[in-house]
């Protein structure tokens, strides 16, 4: 039995050291922000002025340009969290903790927006805000998982310790999400007549695909920018906590 804390030096350790990380990623923030903003302007212009209405859905197809990117992000962000969780558990890297924590509220919001836009889309097309359809339902469950993770982060007061524990839960969730998706599909197809409208992607004409793609990239960049910023903040927050405790301790001795 022996425990050693000597840090292992490598290029990766150097650039991924939290302080270093903030230093070399900070210059990226502004370009990213600018790019995101430009893409949003272009995307919105396409969405409202340069794309036709769908022959079937009419103008409501324009909801797609915000719905689909958010729906995609809801899954992508969980992927980021799961990879970060692996980083926390396997390499015990502080940066992975930070990334995991910063991503959770973002993912929750994108998921909530996917649900919101989906519900608003459902009303004109299906005549109801909510339908217990497989995809919608599994997105709802995903939102619950996100909110659970956010609640967990808030409940721990020692964030270092929290990271490893939450990583375990995130990974368990990652294993379970495909199962949930599958079971929900099985469930709603079993109980429900196949009345659900299905929009198959490939059928889309280019005039719809272009704005979709632009918005898609714009939202993804938005996430990356916010994630980076939130990670910086989180790194600073940890430093604040350490300093505060030091102050309390320094005062006591």
């Amino acid at each position: 039995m022996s425990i050693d804390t000597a840090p292992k030096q490598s290029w990766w350790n150097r650039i991924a050291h939290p302080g270093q990380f903030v230093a070399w990623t900070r210059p990226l923030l502004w370009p990213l922000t600018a790019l995101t903003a430009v893409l949003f302007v272009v995307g919105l212009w396409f969405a409202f002025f340069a794309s036709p209405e769908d022959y079937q859905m009419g103008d409501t197809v324009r909801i797609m340009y915000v719905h689909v990117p958010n729906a995609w992000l809801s899954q992508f962000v969980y992927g980021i969290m799961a990879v970060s969780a692996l980083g926390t558990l396997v390499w015990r890297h502080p940066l992975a903790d930070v990334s995991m924590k910063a991503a959770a509220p973002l993912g929750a919001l994108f998921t909530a927006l996917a649900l919101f836009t989906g519900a608003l889309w459902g009303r004109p097309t299906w005549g109801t805000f909510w339908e217990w359809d497989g995809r919608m339902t599994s997105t709802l469950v995903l939102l619950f998982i996100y909110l659970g993770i956010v609640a967990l982060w808030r409940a721990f007061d020692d964030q270092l310790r929290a990271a490893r524990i939450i990583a375990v839960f995130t990974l368990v969730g990652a294993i379970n999400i495909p199962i949930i998706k599958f079971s929900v599909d099985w469930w709603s197809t079993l109980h429900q007549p196949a009345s659900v409208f299905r929009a198959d992607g490939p059928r889309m004409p280019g005039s719809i695909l272009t704005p979709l793609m632009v918005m898609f990239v714009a939202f993804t960049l938005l996430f990356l920018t916010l994630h980076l910023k939130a990670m910086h903040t989180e790194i600073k927050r940890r430093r604040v906590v350490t300093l505060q405790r030091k102050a309390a301790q320094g005062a006591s001795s």
Partner: protein
Amino acid sequence: MNAFAAMLGRELRLALRGGGDVLTLVLFFVIVGAIVPFAVGPDKALLERIAPGIVWIAAFLAMLLGLDRLFRPDYEDGTLTLLRHADLPLSAAIAAKVIAHWLVSAVPLILASPVLTVLLAMEGDAFWRTVLSLLLGTPALAAFGAIGAAVTVSIRRGGLIAPILIAPLSIPVLIFGVGAITATQSSAALLFLAALSLMAAALAPFAAALAISSAED
């Protein structure tokens, strides 16, 4: 193996001496089932239709209820700290705890399920399918529950978070469990349930041990 048996024995003893905790869970299960007719009104056809769902929800909630007792008392009196230095690996000790948890919280429910089937006007055939589906599905609930309890044990006021972590994870169990009672493809659902339970039971001790050993004292 001896240590495993000791752990199992201790858990069972504590539960059975625990001033009727087991009885309480069963009563809770029955009461949730019995309250539903009050809430939805005494319409027989309706009741029979939603009966499988209610049995499973009652079982799920009853198992949630006992969950806070799985690790918290041991965490608070220092037992979990000591278990890290026991000869028995922590994951094995947790496996014993999960098995005991299933024995004292799920098995009594299964035994009590006839009461619910009567209250909810289910017919004989559905009753047997209910028992079978509970038998195959509750291990998964216990396993997911253990993961949730382990993740939240070191939060000082964390007892409330466990249920919301567990509920989304348990949805497949509910869906297949209910499916196994009602559907015509009952056997497919049963198979899935069994697979889920196996997978969850295999995963849970390790995940829970990982979570617990990353909790500082």
